[in-house]
């Protein structure tokens, strides 16, 4: 299926780059781009290739730093004071969003949703209803995706998963745009066995309605969502380290992700520059550049290390990760994905144990592979449920 590039600050130039060809879809970022820039981006994307362009209106956190959001024509000027239970308010928003999407010429729009205080059935009814309204407002063949925001912790409850899936699937749209909200620190992997198994089950339930699921804001956890059957996963250049969090919308546009990282398939982990040398010196060089971690950009990094050792490589690191993501997303076809992933994770765990046994300690204290076992457990729980 298609990997999506989740656009962020100054990422438009990544679209269509060498060895990122697996990304045939783009999720626009109205927070980072003015309406004029969005229009220009789409024209440029169309010239570069036949990209599937999705608009995420990003109204999740109305009171956060809004960047360019307030300049968008659909942005409700009364969002701070409006009664968000009002049907009229949502209808107006949806009509304006549809109009904006049509003028931009996107392929699909994710229905607008805000992060709730309480993740209750009424909230999901509102989400389903908003998606229905959007579908009815879009007139020019633009697809509607039902935005399904879930609370990471709540997904540990199997009945909550079925309830959410039942409610949001009531509206017949072209697919789902899944957003996972959590308090897990941005630089940490999800590591809840039950929570991850629940999210995987949600993906499976939604896919069973024959409408594709696009899991937004993914990092390496894409592996689990693909194993669950997600048609598409989206990531961005900073998503090598960060995922959807409320704080993400409060960060300065230039903040975060400035250290260079290499994504390593054999460990399902990000490595800092010194870690690469450390592994080689300890006799674990064969763990570097395994599977899709070996790509055009990994070679560029190696070449640069050899020829210009002091030169910054953060931008190459983004691309090395994105290239791994796009290729690996394609390498996990349903229904064999769970068994493929089980093999990868088992191997990763063995590799981490070997590093531990040899007392090879990576730069970051928590970069110890501790999430691999919960991922395996979540995968087992998912497969056996």
């Amino acid at each position, binding site marked *: 299926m298609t990997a999506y590039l989740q656009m962020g600050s100054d990422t438009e130039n990544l679209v269509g780059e060498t060895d990122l060809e697996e990304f045939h879809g783009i999720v626009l970022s109205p927070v980072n781009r003015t309406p004029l820039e969005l229009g220009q981006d789409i024209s440029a994307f169309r010239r570069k290739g036949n990209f599937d362009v999705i608009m995420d209106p990003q109204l999740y956190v109305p009171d956060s730093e809004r960047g360019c959001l307030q300049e968008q024509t659909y942005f409700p000027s009364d969002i701070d004071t409006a009664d968000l239970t009002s049907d009229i308010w949502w209808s107006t928003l949806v009509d304006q969003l549809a109009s904006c999407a049509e003028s931009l010429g996107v392929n699909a729009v994710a229905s607008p949703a805000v992060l709730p205080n309480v993740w209750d059935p009424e909230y999901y009814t509102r989400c389903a209803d908003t998606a*229905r309204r959007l579908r009815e407002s879009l007139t020019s063949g633009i697809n509607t995706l039902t935005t399904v925001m879930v609370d990471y912790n709540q997904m540990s409850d199997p009945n909550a998963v079925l*309830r959410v899936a*039942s409610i949001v*699937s*009531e509206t017949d749209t072209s697919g789902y745009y899944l957003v996972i909200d959590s308090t897990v620190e941005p630089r940490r992997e999800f590591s809840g066995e039950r929570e991850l198994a629940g999210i995987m089950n949600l993906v499976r339930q939604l896919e069973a*309605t024959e409408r594709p699921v696009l899991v937004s804001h993914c990092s390496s956890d894409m592996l689990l969502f693909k194993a669950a059957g997600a048609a598409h996963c989206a990531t961005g250049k900073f998503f090598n380290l960060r995922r959807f969090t409320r704080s993400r919308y409060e960060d300065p546009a230039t903040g975060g992700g400035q250290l260079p990282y290499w994504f390593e398939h054999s460990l399902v982990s990000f490595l800092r520059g010194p870690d690469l040398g450390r592994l080689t010196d300890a006799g674990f060089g064969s763990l570097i550049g395994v599977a899709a971690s070996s790509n055009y950009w990994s070679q560029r990094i190696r070449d640069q290390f050899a020829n210009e050792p002091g030169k910054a490589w953060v931008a190459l690191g983004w691309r090395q990760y994105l290239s791994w993501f796009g290729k690996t997303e394609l390498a996990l076809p349903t229904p064999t994905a769970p068994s493929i992933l089980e093999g990868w994770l088992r191997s990763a765990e063995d590799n981490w144990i070997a590093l531990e046994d040899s007392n090879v300690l990576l730069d970051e204290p928590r970069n110890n592979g501790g999430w691999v076992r919960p991922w395996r457990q979540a995968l087992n729980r998912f497969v056996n449920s």
Partner: protein
Amino acid sequence: MSSPPTPSHLAVANELARATNLNNLTFKAQGAFKETFRAETVHGTVVALKILDPSKCDLARTSREIEALQRCDSPYIAKLFDSGTFHASDGKDYFFAVEEFLDGGTLTDRLTTAALSPDQVKSYAACLVRALDHLRSLNLVHRDIKPDNIMFRLGADLPVLVDFGLVRDLSAISLTQTWLPQGPGTPYYAAPEQLHNDKALIGWRTDQFSLGIVLGIGLTGRHPFERPGMTMPQTVGVVAARQSCSNEFMQAANDAGLAGIVQMLAPWPIHRYSSPRRLLEVFE
């Protein structure tokens, strides 16, 4: 045999018939809120004149029923020709509706003589799924699908869905209070989400579940969730507990080539058929 009930509103019906140019009025049935009369238009079309007692029926629900029927246009849903409020000489205002007269009896009548053959189940199911498809396109949920509310035209073997008294318009605010332990519907035919008043889960798949119960009873003569020796309330309890239908029913459905009914009866809506189109494929 018991004598037929006496209509309470015969005088009102006669007044109304004169006002609406209906002739040959005959009393047919009495319900909790309304009385039904057979009548003929000046063109000879046979219609059902329904008179609703304003002191007994819920104004908001009646309005929704009328509005819903006005929007419907399906051969498998009873047609509404006229409706309104009538000020009678007794000084009271009555709701009335002039609907298609279905004189082929109810599914309940048919099931008293024999169970349905698998082919009949498929045939009725295909018609009624089309009715559900139409309702879904209008964002409506019937919420009271049961053999009493499935009727037939005289001489035809095509079922017609009637009685929209509990219809829910999903695009309008719910009239059901959240604190109620159980939502509107007939418990014996209700989905788990109705039995729990789980309003957010009410949708077209709620009707799909009830239709599955009806088809299951039509096929086997027993409620699909009924275990040997169970009473009706106990059977409803099994549905409310989100258990699966009985092994005996699953076997019977399989043997009849109607295993799809089992999926219609999944405890959670997400596990039922996701679209009427998919459900229709099961029966065609």
